């Protein structure tokens, strides 16, 4: 496609720099992710962009595009299995208050808090009693049943989500999904 005015060079696009497909969609100005207020509150990924490698500006709308969550989950798990592992895996025990047995997760398989939370929610879905199991942000604590906490290198129990993902992975020794009422004592803000 000839571009005599070299407009393409100054064009704003959503792709990473250097990716230049032949037929890139050129979308008009109104193409903003028009989300209602409710969905903005549901966004959890905005806080944890650095480690996931996604372009930070592109927040995701819940349930869009309409790919079945079953498909997304199974697809994501396959992709993760294929990743080359440098370490042999960072396995930590995960306990959930009220569940009869513990599980183990490999923290090296996940890229972000969001991925980890999704995986944990799927793992313990059978034991949840209602609403969403795990809080997404600190201020949600009173609205969810459980909160994810972890034991760090110093032996302290911390609320998951405060430190950058890589720092969390390197310092986390075990995870505990505790009841929301108990977890409230751990938040830094009242």
């Amino acid at each position, binding site marked *: 496609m000839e571009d005599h005015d070299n407009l393409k060079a100054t064009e704003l696009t*959503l792709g990473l720099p250097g990716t230049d497909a032949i*037929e890139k969609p050129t979308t008009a100005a109104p*193409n903003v992710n028009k989300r209602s207020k409710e969905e903005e509150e549901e966004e959890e990924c905005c806080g944890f962009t650095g480690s996931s490698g996604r372009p930070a500006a592109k927040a995701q709308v819940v349930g869009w595009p309409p790919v079945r*969550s079953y498909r997304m989950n199974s697809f994501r798990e396959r992709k993760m299995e294929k990743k080359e592992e440098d370490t042999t895996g960072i396995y930590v025990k995960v306990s959930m208050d009220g569940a009869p047995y513990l599980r183990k997760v490999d923290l090296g398989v996940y890229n972000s808090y969001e991925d980890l939370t999704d995986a944990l929610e799927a793992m313990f879905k059978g034991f949840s009693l209602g*609403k969403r199991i795990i809080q997404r942000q600190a201020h949600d604590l009173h609205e969810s049943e459980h909160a994810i906490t972890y034991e760090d290198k110093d032996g302290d129990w911390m609320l998951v989500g405060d430190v950058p993902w890589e720092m969390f992975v390197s310092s986390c020794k075990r995870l505990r999904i505790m009841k929301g009422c108990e977890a409230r004592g751990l938040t830094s803000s009242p």
Partner: protein
Amino acid sequence: MVRGFGWAAAFPDEVWEHVFSFLAADADRNAVALVCRAWHRIERRSRRRVFVGNCYAVAPAAAVRRFPEVRAAAIKGKPHFADFNLVPTDWGGGAEAWVEAMAEGWPHLEELRLKRMVVSDDCLELIARSFKNFGVLSLVSCDGFSTAGLAAIAANCRNLRELDLHENEVEDNCLNWISHFPESFTSLVSLNIACLEGDVNTSVLECLISRCPNLRTLRLNHAMPLEKLVSLLQRAPQLMDLGTSKFSADHHPELFFKLESTFAGFKHLKSLSGIWEAGPAYLPAIYSVCESLTSLNLCYATIQSPELFKLVSRCKNLQRLWVMDLIEDNGLIAVAASCKLLQELRVFPSDPYGVAPPISLTEHGLVAISAGCLMLHSVLYFCRQMTNAALLTIANNRPNLTCFRLCIIEPHTPDYISQEPLDAGFSAIVESCKDLRRLSLSGLLTDRVFKSIGASANRLEMLSVAFAGDSDAGLHYILSGCKNLRKLEIRDCPFGDKALLDNASKLETMRSLWMSSCSVTLGACRQLALKMPRLNVEVIDERRGRPLESWPDDFPVEKLYIYRTVAGPRSDTPPCVWTV
């Protein structure tokens, strides 16, 4: 000449029953039941199959009482948008109420199909114990159960013919559930365990397959390694429908040859799926069956375009193709040239969030298919760009479309050449495709497209709308038109109270309406509920703790699910759901 409806008595009941047995469609049987009391009585006693599109539309006991001789039941639970995480996980759709009523009233039940329901292990155990002649269990997009429940089914259902587990969330706590099929069990015809995550004991499975000579369908899960797959498949050369496990391994020529000869041994194979993570090395082993395939599902196979092209272009008799967008336009052009019998095409996005470099799959691929495949009637297509011209061409090429679901991944995307909304394109689709039963819209759309849909889509039964429209007029056009509309699901559109209230009675002619992130207020829901007592108006709000009664009328409703019912408000609503 017999007056009135006395002619019903002119023949004994068995004759009418025999006549009615030729009516397959529920709608026809329902019509027959309305003719006179005698026919109502005869019909209800002879109905063998029941389909409940919404598990809350009727009380289980009532359904069981009305049709005492049912042998096959199919029930659906959650709204379709539950597939995309828009419905709270605890919304409902539990199967217990139905299973308990059926255990009580239909001891001769042979077939049960559940979709988007919450099925517990207790349910599965009840099913296993209650129906002596149970033959078919199909669970699609369900959750709440584990392999322990499956073990109960395996152990107790002596005449099980079909176990179909499709895209369920199953907890894996009983690794050897397959070994619960007794040694005397030989009736299996169809086994689909593709959605199970855990390893399945291959030798036990091999034994099972060897002693079931009628096995026609076998869909395995991802976990089984390729070498074990080969030895398993050698036991079942009579298969017609195969879903493989992982199709990659370190390259061993010997393994390749074994795989190739196993496939060559399939003389009756018509349908192939699975092929997870196919490596280019092993794919050619399939080539020998391509010619006979009528259905090919590669939607989990991350094969790149050249290999895809080679595989699919050999499948001259393909009627159904499900594939990833990795096939690209060139691949679809090849399909259009080779697969002249194609009826259904689904193209899934390999990278829905647009992180990887863009794939060269555009409107051109779909246009090529619409031109080359004269029997094409069903389309699901994910892409990133579209034009009105392309849609017009597709509409003109394929007026026989019955299902057209287009998903342009970025919301509000206009025609990328003209920058216009895609109203003209979708209007062409509904005006040309007179038999269109299902439509999903996407891209930049104004109220104009809804005017066309309302006016022209006379056979439309299901419509999915997202990020479209300008005003209430859009919703009004749909609800005041679309004579045969059954299911309407809407998200993120500026549709509100007026259209809903002006068309309240339309809602009783439909199975259900879902609206989320629109402009509906609680006041309108209250008015609607008052006006239409045979609708359940469910307001879903996951954020607030205060009860519904305390909220004002102008409170914006986050999610709304309205459905017709003769069972009244349901008793199992979770905290986030209020029946207004």
